């Protein structure tokens, strides 16, 4: 399995690496632009894109043989979403804040 595909992952790994570095430059550049209220959204979108690249290709979720692994990842993110969404919906709807 590892023998005949020995050269192909390297190209992918270096491609992901370059993309991540470019995205880092992009997020710094975007931070110094005045995008109004969208500055934070742009920064978080780029960060999430980078995190997905690392998880899929460097942590090999994409080629994971176990479906359970994918389930654990999705479940963890789902619980994180509950934590953030419910906490923020509470704080965002308090009349005194």
């Amino acid at each position, binding site marked *: 399995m*590892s023998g005949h595909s020995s050269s192909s992952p*390297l190209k992918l790994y270096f491609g992901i690496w370059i993309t991540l570095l470019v995205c880092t430059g992009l*997020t710094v550049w975007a*931070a110094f632009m005045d995008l109004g209220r969208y500055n934070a959204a742009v*920064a978080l979108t780029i960060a999430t894109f980078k995190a997905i690249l*690392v998880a899929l290709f460097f*942590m090999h979720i994409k080629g994971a043989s176990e479906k359970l692994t994918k389930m*654990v990842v999705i479940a963890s993110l789902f619980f994180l979403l509950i934590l*953030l969404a419910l906490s923020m919906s509470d704080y965002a709807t308090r009349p005194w804040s």
Partner: protein
Amino acid sequence: MTDSPVVAVHGEVENPALLHHFAEPQQQRDAASLGMWVFLGTEIMFFGGLFCAYLIYRRWYFGDWGAASKTLDVTLGATNTAVLICSSLTVVLAVWAAKTARRKLLIGSLLLTLVLGFVFLGIKGIEYKEKFENHHVPGPSFQFNNVKIPGHPDQYANPSHAEIYFALYFIMTGLHALHMIIGIGIFIWLTTKAWEGRFTPDYNTPVEIGGLYWHFVDIIWIYLFPLLYLIDRHP
């Protein structure tokens, strides 16, 4: 079709790395990987609580946090982001080298990962030193007077609100640095095992699992960098 006892005994003789309660190496590898992912799930919730605290206070003390964030050095932060991304590349190269029996590449990649890990901590140390010198460390000596709020030249940041920013800055980056130190410990252990020639295409789970941990710590920093360094930077 009743293969388990025969295969297990057979496998044990043929592959000393296969523990007796696993039927085959692939199952053993999947179990170890799954265990690591469950641990990373708990880590997501661990850091998630801090990110939640960040969001709440950022909404409350928007301008004060912008002023506090501007005291950080973007160049050092971006450099550290690049350093961690490069270390993620060397980690993934190490995993590939272990799976394809490239001993020199494996040891070289592990050593390079360690060097990059130490570079990250060194730069972080420079940043911490600067914070101590400027009295930006929360506590009795904390000072943040006469700092203007970005976009509001007539308003000054509330020092006690800025102090909360720096408290979260030190907790989040400090915990991240602690994870880096633990990661460096894991990679020193991996390097010695690789030096002894313990990793083969049949047995390389420790490299893979250590790599998962390292990549996760990288992902945390990918979020910490824009959230802590890049808020309210535009003129």
